[in-house]
């Protein structure tokens, strides 16, 4: 506890802030700036953007609120935080929407200018919460952010409307002051971003600084906080979202494998950003094709793979549903493609901007006939990078389609990422077939992989297709025994992959009363929950699946060593179903389908419930 400028300075290890306002208030941008700066000064962090399905819902309404939650710490953290310590509410609707999650005794910074009659009514407040005593127990700072911004910018040449648009930078300034962050990264960003709009750059700069100085000089803030850098492994870091990491992972896979990257895709939330990112990388020879629909997306991808590209298609649940028939074609033709499914809330259109894990069974089984596919799942934003490479590597080596699952949470969420060098990345070992001698389209190697003989190669002319193939020759075959054989070979080939992926390492004791097993984007919540439970003396272990079909070889063994198996999933128990049928083990399901990542305490409470014996 130091003193500076007459204000108390407190040291904290762990803070969650939430920027919330109208869709038009620029909250996503504000949150991103705060997180970039926070990463820059060395905190570990994790973010969760939350925006409406509407492009611009009418101002002031609750469904028009856009929020950005950000968790940062001097320790290693893995979730965006269960609820904010500090809520910046740019209007009443924002307060209404996010107050429920606010931590006990949390702080609210409210833009009182926006708390007028109209906005209160739109937010369905009968009385002004800033005045009716309903916020007792919270630290409420009422700041006339709009007025102060207008005041600060009164000498600029901007229109009144544009002036008001800078108010998010004012709010950001306050927060930078409160958490002791430098202004430079954002100032630099403003100058680059608005290079051509000098007026705007100037206004935002002034507003940011004004907010900072406001915090410093005004009487209302009595404390500011220091969150020291986290002890992260040495290296160069950047902040990265899952979609960006996925895109870069595929570029990396293209460079590593030597195959041109092809993406055939149709826009869909929350997967579109992968398309957006990859369409920028033309100088890597990346070819992106915005197809007429998801079916054309995957079919063009299959065409490109037939031709020798590292070919991928990206989508979300409804799009995956449309791709199933063609995915089956990739299965039977044994062509290497990667299908990325950035999961969102379903069924049907469902909750398009919310996260979920309910496409797993579709990925596993959603095709006609026995049509096995390899399934991988990324667990954090940065892990998307590695899993994109892994998905590519497996597809090319084993000559088969791979589905890589991510979800809306990790796709849009960000975390600091220690950037690997090319040399640290996985190796690709597969070859194009070029030798006509003894060539047979379905002759298999030790991995049961068939040769990749691409058009343009003299002497390897051959035909593939969706009718059952005779093993080895690849000719059409209606032979009963051949079909039985081929169905089993396709399945066996998937199982061969398990020789090529890492075994699971248990986090915690290798046997005991309870193991928590998760997959995909819930890893952060589970890590933190298990850690906290252990800190409170509970003996609980943990594993996390990134390879689902096939499972790592030692999974069955591990599970057999625990009395209880807890499977938290953001679905109604899909992994659980697979574990039960594969290993005949009982599972304790823990399912929430709220369009949101798990909160740490939810899983921790469940662990305690099990180990406390109250539920046995």
């Amino acid at each position, binding site marked *: 506890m130091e003193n500076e400028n007459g204000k108390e300075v407190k040291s904290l290890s762990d803070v969650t802030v939430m920027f919330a306002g109208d869709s038009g208030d620029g909250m996503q941008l504000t949150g991103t700036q705060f997180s970039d700066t926070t990463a820059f000064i060395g905190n570990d962090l994790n973010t969760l953007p939350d925006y409406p399905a509407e492009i611009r819902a009418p101002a002031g309404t609750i469904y028009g609120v856009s929020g950005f939650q950000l968790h940062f710490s001097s320790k290693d953290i893995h979730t965006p935080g269960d609820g904010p310590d500090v809520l910046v509410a740019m209007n009443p609707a924002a307060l209404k929407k996010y107050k429920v999650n606010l931590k006990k005794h949390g702080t609210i910074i409210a833009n009182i200018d926006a708390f007028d009659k109209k906005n209160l009514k739109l937010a369905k407040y009968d009385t002004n919460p800033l005045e009716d005593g309903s916020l007792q127990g919270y630290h409420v700072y009422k700041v006339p952010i709009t007025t102060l911004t207008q005041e600060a910018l009164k000498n600029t040449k901007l229109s009144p409307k544009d002036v008001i648009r800078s108010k998010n930078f004012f709010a950001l300034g306050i927060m930078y002051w409160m958490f002791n962050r430098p202004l430079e990264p954002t100032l630099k960003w403003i100058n680059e971003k608005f290079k051509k709009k000098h007026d705007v750059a100037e206004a935002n700069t002034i507003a940011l600084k004004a907010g900072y100085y406001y915090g410093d000089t005004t009487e209302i803030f009595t404390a500011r906080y220091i969150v020291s850098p986290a002890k992260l492994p040495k290296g160069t870091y950047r902040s990265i979202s899952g979609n960006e990491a996925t895109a870069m992972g595929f570029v990396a896979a293209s460079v590593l494998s030597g195959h041109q990257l092809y993406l*055939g895709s149709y826009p869909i939330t929350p997967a579109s950003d992968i398309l957006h990112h990859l369409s920028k*990388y*033309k100088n890597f020879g990346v*070819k992106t094709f915005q197809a007429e629909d998801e079916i054309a997306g995957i079919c*063009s991808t299959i065409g490109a793979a037939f031709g020798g590209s590292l070919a991928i298609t990206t989508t979300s649940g409804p799009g995956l549903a449309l791709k199933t028939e063609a995915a089956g074609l990739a299965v039977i033709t044994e062509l290497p493609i990667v299908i990325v499914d950035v999961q969102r809330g379903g069924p049907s259109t469902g909750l398009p901007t919310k996260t979920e894990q309910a496409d797993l069974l579709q990925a596993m089984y959603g095709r006609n006939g026995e049509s096995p596919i390899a399934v991988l799942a990324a667990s954090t934003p940065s892990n998307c990078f590695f899993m994109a490479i892994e998905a590519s590597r497996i597809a090319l080596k084993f000559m088969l389609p791979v589905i890589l699952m991510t979800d809306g949470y990790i796709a849009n969420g960000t975390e600091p990422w220690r950037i690997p060098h090319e040399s640290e990345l996985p190796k690709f070992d597969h070859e194009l077939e070029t030798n006509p001698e003894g060539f047979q389209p379905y002759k298999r190697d030790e991995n049961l992989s068939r040769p990749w003989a691409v058009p343009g190669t003299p002497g390897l002319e051959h*035909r593939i297709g969706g009718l059952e193939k005779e093993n080895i020759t690849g000719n059409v075959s209606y032979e009963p025994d051949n079909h039985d054989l081929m169905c089993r070979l396709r399945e066996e080939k998937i199982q061969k992959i398990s020789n090529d992926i890492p075994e699971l390492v248990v986090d915690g004791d290798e046997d005991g009363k309870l193991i928590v097993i998760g997959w995909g984007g819930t890893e952060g919540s589970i890590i933190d929950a298990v850690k906290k439970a252990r800190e409170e003396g509970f003996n609980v272990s943990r594993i996390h699946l990134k390879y689902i079909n096939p499972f790592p070889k030692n999974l069955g063994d591990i599970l057999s060593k625990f009395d209880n198996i807890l499977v938290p999933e953001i679905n109604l128990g899909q992994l659980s179903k697979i574990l039960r049928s594969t290993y005949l083990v009982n599972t304790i399901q823990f399912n929430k389908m709220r369009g949101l990542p798990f909160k740490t305490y939810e899983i921790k409470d469940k662990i305690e419930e099990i180990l406390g014996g109250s539920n046995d």
Partner: protein
Amino acid sequence: MTDKIDVQEVKLTAKDFKSDQDVRWCPGCGDYSILAQVQRTFPTLGKKKENFVWISGIGCSSRFPYYMDTYGFHSIHGRAPAIATGLKIAHPELDVWVATGDGDLMSIGGNHFIHACRKNVDIKLLLFNNQIYGLTKGQYSPTSERGKITKSSPYGSIDYPFNPISLALGSNATFVARTVDRDPKHLQQMIKRAAEHKGTAFIEIYQNCVIFNNGAFFSLTEKENRPEHTIVLEHGEPMIFGKNNDKGIILDGFEPKVVNLNDGKYTIADLIVHDEFEESPVRAFILSHMTNHPDLPTPFGVFRQVVIETYNEALERQIKEVTEKKGKGDLDELLFSGNTWEVA
């Protein structure tokens, strides 16, 4: 086209394009002729054998790739144009051909068809139009005439048919032609013309299904009917037809009309002179509506051919431009771009 020609050391023949698979169409099926004409034409194109790829959907016609000794892909129903598009975009050095049926391309594959036309991807679409679903044993198709009695329309179908040529033109296709299985020479010509076109080339081939729709085109293909009921489009030539070349087509306002060249009212100079290369598709569209018209001959030949940048060319150009501007992509540079910071 010269940049693409790369003369083979050994001259290819039709036989080089015959695969070792037994052809399994019904005896008498029009598909045999199409296969034969393709096998005859391909060696004359001066292209590398290994660069040819045939892609098909599902249907009798879609068995085509098995019989060609080129790379081939018998895919799923309706999706061949999408697969071909991906292959061509990714690997523009290949010559990508699609064999498809009226169900495959016009029914389930309709969307990929119109989008391929619109995008002008350099692929060749050969529509085997037998006006019936052959492989599924005889239901009416989107090109079947209204009132057709089939298994799924026991009281006569109530669907109006597509005019595939009009649909292609409505989708801005840059090459649109029609021919027929029973006219091997014309078929070969059209194949060759399509091969030489840069951009999406669409050929509607009237094809006789002996089993489920036998004789659908006899009024256009049989000796006695042909001269009076059809007209062959030739670029730069006046539109003349008839057994004795005594009839012609004029434009009467917006509509084509048949005139008699013998009754002294009209001469050849009054007739429409066909122009394949006109930029606007409206002429071709007018001609397309002569199809199956009670008073007009059905046209065969190239309705339209215009050359504009193909999708694949544009993509290669853009890659080149961006690479020239930004330099060839470097992975480390990409990974380390943006806001980075060091942890020591």
